[in-house]
């Protein structure tokens, strides 16, 4: 057994806190080490060449790299080994950067720790076995969860490449929050006008199968071969028959608050969320329908029978199974609940509204057909309050929601356009106009006579029939009270309510802000930590529309890689059974969370015994089975008992 040890300086990242020369000397005297070298950047091309050259010249059969985390460069070095003809799994990495040089100040102690980490890696490396990597076929289809702009874009990009896409949306129509918006900043494009063509494309696309009013309830499998269970909620209307004529709604006598208009208006109990809905199909609200509740009304049924006869009260919840190779998560955001800031009086005053409510109010398809009317009057004085629920530790949201500064500027512009006489005041902490064309737009809005006052209001209260916004203007250093008859709260973005559920369904992590966590903040911003699952849009963090679209296209491209190569390499760290040691107790079978182990009969001379047997395709390599095996017959590749124990022993040694 010949080992090579390669110690990286990482510029000064490691060298500054770890005595690399001493570490190299130390490595030289470790058992079985043939060569030990240090180099400025081991991951660089010349660094990798060093390793390759040594493998060829010295006939090394195991390689240890002491550098950054294996989560960073394990793949790089595995490739280097492979290209030099060595099995890529004959590599062990000692993490002396993230878990040593970057976290310890005492150089001597950090060097001592690095020695231990290196000795542990060397002792494990000597016990590593070459492993075979298996290729499996990829199901040429993708699942997109969420039908907002990010999900729509991802679905279209994948479908346009020629692969099947299953798009799942929990609401009766795709469109997400974007379809609720009026104009978009900073170009003032009409939101619906630019979105509806894409929605129509989704509806008509031969490669997209749309599951609206549906939810993903179970996901099994792994990259290349996911099995997804989708729950279709009953619409009580046959999608294939409904032509959205709307006769039913005219006859329906039940009126309920219209959630699409954020309850600012009423809709019927049988409804279509908005005129451009995709699919263009009505839906019956099961919580309010008199037929479904008490069976004493059949108005809609009667009228529909004379038309397409699409209403079907016998519809039941339906579970559909689909197979896909990759998954894009685009579950979007929810609005911060402004009632958790009671000082702004949202729960008390009708003329305190959220930013999204303003969008509906100002929207031509909204409850006032685009006229800014509140309590039957056109407001004379309008106040916007920014950062409601963003950059606010008191409500647990430290982050900036990234869109409120600009949507407030846009809304101020819309008020100016529609109510030229109104006074408009914006209270802000900082104006973050960072995007393309943002600063210019902010400048334009200021020149339109919108008054920006720096200060975070402390209170909104009523005086007579008007509202008063009380704040400290921190630029002028004075307390101000501004009268208003419309106050718009620039409510921030929080992760969709179901984010935690999605995360546990797909085994994804959440960052402290509760958005979904990407695999690497810089280099893998659209990957999740799970292979084959990608993130798009606001589920990963607050974003504006162009950023969501860009990330969606990126996620689509990433998810197309396995689909178009048609094969994925499944990780080799599966379990294996030493049959002669197995007593067939079945503990491992019970412990395996993936049903990857079963007992099968083998012949031993004349006797027939039961031994455990691992299905390598189902095995995900957690190693739980190995931890419950009494005889040590079942082991995890690269994490066998003796390999781990050798590290324990090495960490226990005292080194000079």
């Amino acid at each position, binding site marked *: 057994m010949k080992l090579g040890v390669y110690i990286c300086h990482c510029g000064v990242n490691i060298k500054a806190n770890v005595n690399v020369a001493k570490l190299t000397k130390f490595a030289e005297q470790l058992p079985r080490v043939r060569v030990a070298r240090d180099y400025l950047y081991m991951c660089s091309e010349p660094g990798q060449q060093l390793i390759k050259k040594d493998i060829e010249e010295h006939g090394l059969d195991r390689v240890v790299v002491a550098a950054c985390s294996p989560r960073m460069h394990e793949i790089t070095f595995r490739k280097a080994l492979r290209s030099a003809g060595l099995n890529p799994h004959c590599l062990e990495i000692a993490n002396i950067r993230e878990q040593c040089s970057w*976290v310890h*100040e005492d150089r001597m102690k*950090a060097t001592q720790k690095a020695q231990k980490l290196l000795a542990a890696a060397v002792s494990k490396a000597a016990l590593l076995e070459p492993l075979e990597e298996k290729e499996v076929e990829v199901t040429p289809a993708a699942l997109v969860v969420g039908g907002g702009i990010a999900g729509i874009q991802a679905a279209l990009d994948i479908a346009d490449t020629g692969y099947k896409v299953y798009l799942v949306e929990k609401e009766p129509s795709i469109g997400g929050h974007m379809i609720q918006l009026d104009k978009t900043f900073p170009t003032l494009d009409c939101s619906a006008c630019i979105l509806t063509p894409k929605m129509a494309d989704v509806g008509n696309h031969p490669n997209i199968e749309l599951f609206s009013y549906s939810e993903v309830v179970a996901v099994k499998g792994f990259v290349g071969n996911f099995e997804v269970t989708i729950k279709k909620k009953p619409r009580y209307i046959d999608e294939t028959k409904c032509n959205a004529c709307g006769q039913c709604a005219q006859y329906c006598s039940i009126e309920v608050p219209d959630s699409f208009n954020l309850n600012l208006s009423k809709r019927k109990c049988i409804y279509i969320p908005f005129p451009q809905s995709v699919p263009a199909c009505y839906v019956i609200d099961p919580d309010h329908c008199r037929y479904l509740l008490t069976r004493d009304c059949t108005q809609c049924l009667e009228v529909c029978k004379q038309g397409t006869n699409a209403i079907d009260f016998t519809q039941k919840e339906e579970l559909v199974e689909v197979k896909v190779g990759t998954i894009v998560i685009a579950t979007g955001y929810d609005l911060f609940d402004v009632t958790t800031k009671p000082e702004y009086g949202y729960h008390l005053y009708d003329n305190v509204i959220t930013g999204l409510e303003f969008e509906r109010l100002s929207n031509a398809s909204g409850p006032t057909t685009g006229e800014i009317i509140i309590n039957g009057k056109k407001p004379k004085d309008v106040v916007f309050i920014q950062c409601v629920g963003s950059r606010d530790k008191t409500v647990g949201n430290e982050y900036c929601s990234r869109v409120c500064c600009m949507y407030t500027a846009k809304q101020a512009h819309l008020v100016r356009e529609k109510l030229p006489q109104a006074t408009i005041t914006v209270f802000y902490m900082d104006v973050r106009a960072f995007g393309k064309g943002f600063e210019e737009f902010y400048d334009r809005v200021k020149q339109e006579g919108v008054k920006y006052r720096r200060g975070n209001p402390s209170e909104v209260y009523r005086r007579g029939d008007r509202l008063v916004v009380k704040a400290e203007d921190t630029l002028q250093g004075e307390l101000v009270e501004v009268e208003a008859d419309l106050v718009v709260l620039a409510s921030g973005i929080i992760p969709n309510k179901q984010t935690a559920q999605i995360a546990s369904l797909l085994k994804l992590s959440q960052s402290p802000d509760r958005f979904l966590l990407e695999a690497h903040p810089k280099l893998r911003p659209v990957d999740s930590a799970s292979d084959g699952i990608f993130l798009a849009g606001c589920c990963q963090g607050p974003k504006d529309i162009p950023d969501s679209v860009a990330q969606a296209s990126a996620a689509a491209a990433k998810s197309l890689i396995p689909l178009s190569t048609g094969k994925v390499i499944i990780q080799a760290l599966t379990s294996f059974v030493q049959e002669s040691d197995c007593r067939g107790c079945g503990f491992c079978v019970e412990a395996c969370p*993936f049903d990857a182990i079963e007992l099968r009969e083998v012949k031993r001379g004349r006797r027939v015994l039961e031994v455990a047997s691992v299905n390598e395709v189902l095995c995900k390599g957690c190693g739980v089975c190995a*931890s419950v095996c009494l005889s040590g017959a079942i082991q995890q590749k690269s994490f066998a008992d003796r390999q781990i124990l050798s590290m324990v022993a090495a960490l226990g*040694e005292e080194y000079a």
Partner: protein
Amino acid sequence: MLKKFDPNIMAFLCNWCSYAGADLTGTSHFHYPPNLKAIRVMCTGRINPLMVAAAFRHGADGVLISGCHPGECHYMEGNYLARRKIFVFRNLLEFVGINPERLQMSWVSASEGKKFSNVVKEITEKIKKLGPLTTFDE
């Protein structure tokens, strides 16, 4: 002069949460004492109590096992299995005269870099107070 007690603490960290969290501690440059050295496993469910026993036998004064938060295990339920095993094993430690406080378990997710450095500081302080594992208690 008596050498000041500098405990040797070994940690078993799961690849998906705590090892990644420990990496984030590094990336964010949150400092912690160098006493703790980590061994990466794919899942805390992989850890066999014998490994903990071996750690103590080979000179560890304390052992930390850290994995994904309950309900967030990358492999569904490996962390629960680890928790049950550790719970039982701590009783056994007490029985043989090793203070069960020397074996700690924590949940650190991939995004909790700050938390990991706090966990290491806490366990290091705790083990320093307990002193070296040279004799059995009682």
